[in-house]
């Protein structure tokens, strides 16, 4: 017996289905489900702001409440994307200000946001609640002042690693006295002092404040009072963790931390004076997340801390932890899921700390739930990688950054192909991989053969020629993002796998061996790709077609070419031309 449901029933059922993937699948079942689903979709994620236009989004989904948009390619984090590339959020905000009066949440990553944008956001959406800007730039504390002043129901303001023009700390005082709705405030990236009394009052009048991340300018002396005003905090980012040694400050801090019974995450810790670390011992046992990536403390102090954090799930730390500290981590933190070890002296020639591949091997042995790794070190061996792979077949993200480019296996002096091969062969659920060290086309053969769930791959100074790239493009079925620098990959592999590019979000290649001629061919054959040539030497038309281009960014899109490119970016059009942009 066939039941025809009233639409509202189906809509109600769909409200229990929240993952984008499932929602997208639901919308493809039939026309009526497509219609019902599009009217009740509330949340949208746009991985590449140029893949779709605001108009298309609004036309299809008229009732969105929450938007997440990403702009620049990931390699922007390594300064490979020139200034002025794009990623402007303004057209999105303008369009949404008209179409989505009930918008509540905007989350942005690597986008350019202006003060005008922030003001527009603060005034256009009456029920605006969440603003997260991760690695964004282009705005100042004036823009923040608008948000503070005008968003009556603001719950989250999170500036995660954004570059903010810090005009003054007074913006914080723009939160009205009536604002009590804050749940999350992250100002860690700001340089200048904020008004402490405004901050203290704000913190103590927001009973639901769960996450507070201060900036370096907040002195340690101010911390006890702040904590006393917010004992319900679940995540705290301290400011500078240093002061002259004063017993009463230590005991005041100890008291304040003891009062924070719900604290699960700690970060901040700039300029640490180790004598003040015992103040956080009372909360260590309950911590699930610890970010010491700014803490320049030595291994014994780190180890002492970690040995008390039995419930740690996530640790970000500088290589000061050394192999010894990682051994302690492996013994103590059996619930560890994510480890990131950052270099304290990445440009130094000599190794300054005793951190080697052994530390990572220890952790892979001791932590059965480890799934996500980012590890900077100065040497690696195939044997260690094989051990790690066999210890932890449940790895999902593995990013290894051996500091010296093209470093060999330090024991055998061979390339690290076999080691990374073992990783992809054993870790069947691997979704993200970053390679480093000396690598030949062999490693790409292994990756193409085994890494079937791999979604994102980062390659630098690797491979012998086109065959390597061909293995990856033809073998990695789930590949969405591929970024390559300084590797001898060229035209043949790209052209042979052109169709693959339409199944991916984006491809970035810089300092490789791709010719302008190949770019033109790609642009011609695949009209639904934007093929953007980035070259600061002037138009590629002025050089022979066989000339290699500097950088290439290819992404699929339904929005056509973009018109906000700077003068060093040429978009190849359907005729295979990259016309001079008319300013």
């Amino acid at each position, binding site marked *: *017996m066939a*039941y025809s*449901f009233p639409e*509202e029933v189906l809509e*109600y*059922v769909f409200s*229990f289905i929240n993952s984008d993937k*499932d929602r997208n*699948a*639901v919308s493809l079942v039939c026309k009526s489900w497509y219609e019902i689903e599009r009217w009740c979709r509330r949340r949208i994620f746009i991985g590449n702001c140029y893949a779709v236009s605001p108009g298309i989004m609004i036309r299809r989904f008229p009732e969105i409440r929450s938007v997440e948009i990403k702009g620049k390619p990931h390699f922007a984090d390594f300064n490979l994307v020139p200034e002025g590339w794009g990623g402007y959020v303004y057209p999105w905000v303008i369009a949404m200000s008209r179409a989505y009066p009930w918008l509540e949440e905007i989350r942005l990553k690597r986008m350019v946001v202006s003060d005008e944008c922030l003001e527009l956001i603060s005034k256009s959406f009456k029920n605006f609640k969440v603003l997260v800007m991760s690695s964004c730039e282009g705005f100042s504390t004036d823009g923040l002042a608008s948000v503070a002043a005008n968003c009556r129901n603001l719950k989250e303001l999170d500036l995660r690693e954004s570059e903010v023009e810090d005009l003054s700390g007074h913006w914080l005082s723009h939160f009205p006295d009536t604002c009590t709705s804050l749940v999350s405030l992250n100002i860690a990236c700001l340089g200048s002092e904020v008004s402490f009394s405004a901050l203290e009052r704000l913190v103590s009048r927001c009973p639901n404040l769960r996450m507070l991340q201060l900036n370096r300018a907040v002195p340690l002396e101010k911390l006890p009072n702040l904590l006393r005003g917010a004992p319900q905090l679940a995540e705290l980012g301290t400011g500078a963790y240093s002061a002259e040694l004063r017993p009463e400050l230590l005991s005041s801090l100890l008291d304040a931390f003891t009062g924070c019974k719900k604290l699960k995450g700690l970060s901040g810790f700039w300029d640490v004076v180790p004598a003040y670390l015992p103040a956080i011992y009372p909360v260590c046992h309950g911590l699930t997340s610890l970010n010491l990536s700014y803490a320049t403390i030595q291994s014994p102090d780190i180890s002492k801390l970690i040995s008390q954090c039995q419930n740690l799930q996530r640790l970000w730390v500088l290589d000061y932890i050394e192999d010894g500290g990682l051994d302690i981590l492996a013994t103590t933190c059996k619930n560890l899921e994510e480890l990131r070890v950052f270099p304290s002296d990445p440009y130094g020639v000599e190794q300054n700390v005793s951190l080697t591949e052994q530390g990572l091997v220890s952790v892979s042995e001791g932590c059965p739930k480890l799934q996500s790794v980012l590890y900077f070190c100065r040497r690696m061996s195939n044997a260690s990688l094989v051990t790690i792979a066999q210890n932890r077949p449940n790895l999902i993200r593995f990013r290894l950054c051996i500091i010296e480019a093209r470093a060999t296996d330090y024991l055998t002096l061979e390339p690290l192909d076999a080691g990374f091969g073992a990783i992809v062969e054993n870790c069947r659920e691997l979704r993200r991989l970053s390679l480093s060290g000396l690598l030949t086309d062999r490693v790409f053969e292994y990756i193409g053969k085994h890494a079937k769930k791999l979604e994102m791959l980062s390659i630098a100074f690797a491979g012998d020629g086109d065959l390597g790239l061909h293995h990856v493009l033809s073998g990695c079925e789930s590949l969405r993002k591929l970024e390559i620098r300084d590797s001898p990959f060229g035209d043949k592999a790209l052209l042979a796998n052109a169709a693959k590019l339409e199944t991916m979000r984006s491809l970035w290649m810089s300092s490789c061996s791709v010719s302008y001629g190949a770019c033109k061919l790609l642009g011609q054959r695949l009209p639904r790709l934007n093929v953007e040539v980035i070259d600061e030497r002037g138009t590629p038309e002025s050089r022979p077609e066989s000339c290699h281009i500097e950088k290439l960014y290819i992404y699929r899109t339904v929005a056509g070419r973009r018109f906000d490119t700077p003068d060093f970016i040429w978009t190849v059009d359907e005729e295979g031309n990259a016309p001079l942009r008319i300013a």
Partner: protein
Amino acid sequence: MASESKMIMLRSSNNEVFEVEEALAFESQTIKHMIEHDCADTVIPLPKVSSNILAKVIEYCKKHVTSPKDDNNELESFDAEFVNIDKNVLFGLMSAANYLNIKSFLDLTSQALADIIEEKC
């Protein structure tokens, strides 16, 4: 002295009559509204609900009305088992839950259907 519970008569689409206690029938906002606003006779017709579906709805309401409020585990396993059924019956229950306006029942059946959809995705 125990008070007599008022009995309500419900007639399914295929003319079968079910007699239920008022407290149970009032789980349905639709029925509750009809009775409170005097829109129904002695027997309430439910032309959109067949008797095998109506029987199951009554079974659900009976369990939820008579169970002690704090026995969540038992209710949870009852609910889970209750929707572990043939898809067509599930659709019928959803339709009835919507028509009879029984929120908890609609939530339960909708979530069950959502789970099936997610599994297939």
